[in-house]
C-alpha cells in the first residue's frame, strides 16, 4: 500500500449506493459515446457517398497521404489505449505509482499522435491540399479538393477529440497525485478510459479508409 493517504469517496446523496453511482455514471458515458458513434457515422456516410461518386479521386488522393505516418499513429493510439486500461487497473489494485506512470504514458502517446498529425497537416498545407476553395494544388481529378475536405473534417474532429482527451488525462493525473483514485473509487478514470477507447475506435476505421485505399 502506498505511503500517501487514500482520500475516501463519499457517495452523492441522491444515490443509494456506490455501485448505483458508478453504474449511473457509466450508463451516461455510454449514451454519450453512442451519440458520438452516430455523429461520426454521418461523416462516414459522407465519405461513402463521395467515394461512390468519385472512386478515381479517392484512388489518386490516398497517394498524397503517407501510409507510414498513418500506420505509426495507429500503433501509437493502440498503445495509448493499452496504457489507459492499465491505468484503470492500477487504481483497481491500489497501485498509485503505476497509475500515474500509465496515465503519463497515455498522455505522451496522445502528444506523439498530435505531433505526427501536425507534421502531416503542415505537409498538406505546404502542397496546397486544403479543403474546398482553399485548395491550390495540381491534381488529375477535378474533385480532389472534395477528398481533402473530407480528410480534414474527419481527422480534424478526431484530433479535437484527442485534444479534449489530453485535457481530461491531465485532470486525472492531478487527482491521482492527490490520491483520490483507489480500489473503492475510480469512476472518472473508468469514464475517461471509455472515451479514450472510443477515440481509438474511430481511428481504427479512419486509417484504412483514408490511407489504404486501393
Amino acid at each position, binding site marked *: 500500500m502506498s505511503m500517501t493517504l487514500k482520500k475516501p469517496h463519499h457517495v452523492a446523496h441522491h444515490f443509494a449506493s456506490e455501485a448505483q453511482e458508478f*453504474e449511473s455514471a457509466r*450508463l451516461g458515458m455510454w449514451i454519450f459515446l453512442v451519440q458520438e*458513434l*452516430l455523429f461520426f*457515422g454521418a461523416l462516414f456516410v459522407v465519405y461513402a457517398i463521395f467515394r461512390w461518386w468519385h472512386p478515381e479521386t479517392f484512388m489518386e488522393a490516398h497517394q498524397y497521404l503517407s501510409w507510414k505516418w498513418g500506420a505509426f499513429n495507429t500503433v501509437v493510439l*493502440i498503445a495509448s489505449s*493499452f496504457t489507459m486500461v492499465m491505468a484503470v487497473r492500477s487504481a483497481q489494485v491500489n497501485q498509485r505509482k503505476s497509475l500515474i506512470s500509465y496515465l503519463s504514458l497515455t498522455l505522451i502517446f496522445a502528444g506523439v499522435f498530435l505531433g505526427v498529425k501536425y507534421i502531416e497537416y503542415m505537409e498538406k498545407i505546404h502542397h496546397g491540399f486544403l479543403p474546398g476553395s482553399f485548395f491550390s494544388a*495540381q491534381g488529375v481529378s477535378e474533385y480532389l479538393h472534395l477528398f481533402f475536405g473530407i480528410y480534414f473534417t474527419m481527422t480534424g474532429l478526431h484530433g479535437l477529440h484527442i485534444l479534449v482527451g489530453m485535457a481530461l488525462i491531465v485532470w486525472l493525473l492531478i487527482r491521482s497525485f492527490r490520491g483520490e483514485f483507489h480500489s473503492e473509487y475510480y469512476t472518472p478514470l473508468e469514464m475517461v478510459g471509455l472515451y479514450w477507447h472510443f477515440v481509438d475506435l474511430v481511428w481504427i476505421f479512419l486509417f*484504412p479508409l483514408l490511407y489504404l485505399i486501393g
Partner: protein
Amino acid sequence: MHDHPSSHHMIVPVKTYVAVFVSLLVLTFVTVFVTRFDFGAFNLIVALAIALLKAGLVVMIFMGLKWNKSFDRLAFFGSLVFLFIFFSLVFVDIPLRGYRGVEESQQINIKSPVKPFPKGTMPNAAH
C-alpha cells in the same frame, strides 16, 4: 442488490489486456500488409473486416462490454442497429439515383479549384 463497494468492479487479468494489445498490433500489420495484394472489389471488404475485428476487441475487452451485462450493452448494440439503418438506406439510395452529384455542380457552374495535371505526367507522390 449488491452493496459491497467492490462487487460491481471487474478486475481483468493483465495478460488479457496484453493479448488484446498484441492482437491489435498484429491486425494493424495485417491490414497494411494485405494492401500489397489486389483482391479487386474485395480490398475494401478485407480492410473493413479487419477494422471491425479490431473494433470488436476494443469494445468488448478494453471498454469491458464483455463483462458489462447492464443496460450499457443495449445502448451500444442498439446504436449499431440505427447506424445500420442509416448506412443501408443511404447505400440503397445513392447507387440507384442514376446520376452523380457531378451533374448538379455543372448545372450551377461551380469551378473546381484543382489545377489539372495532364494525365500521365503526375509526379510520384506515393510514400
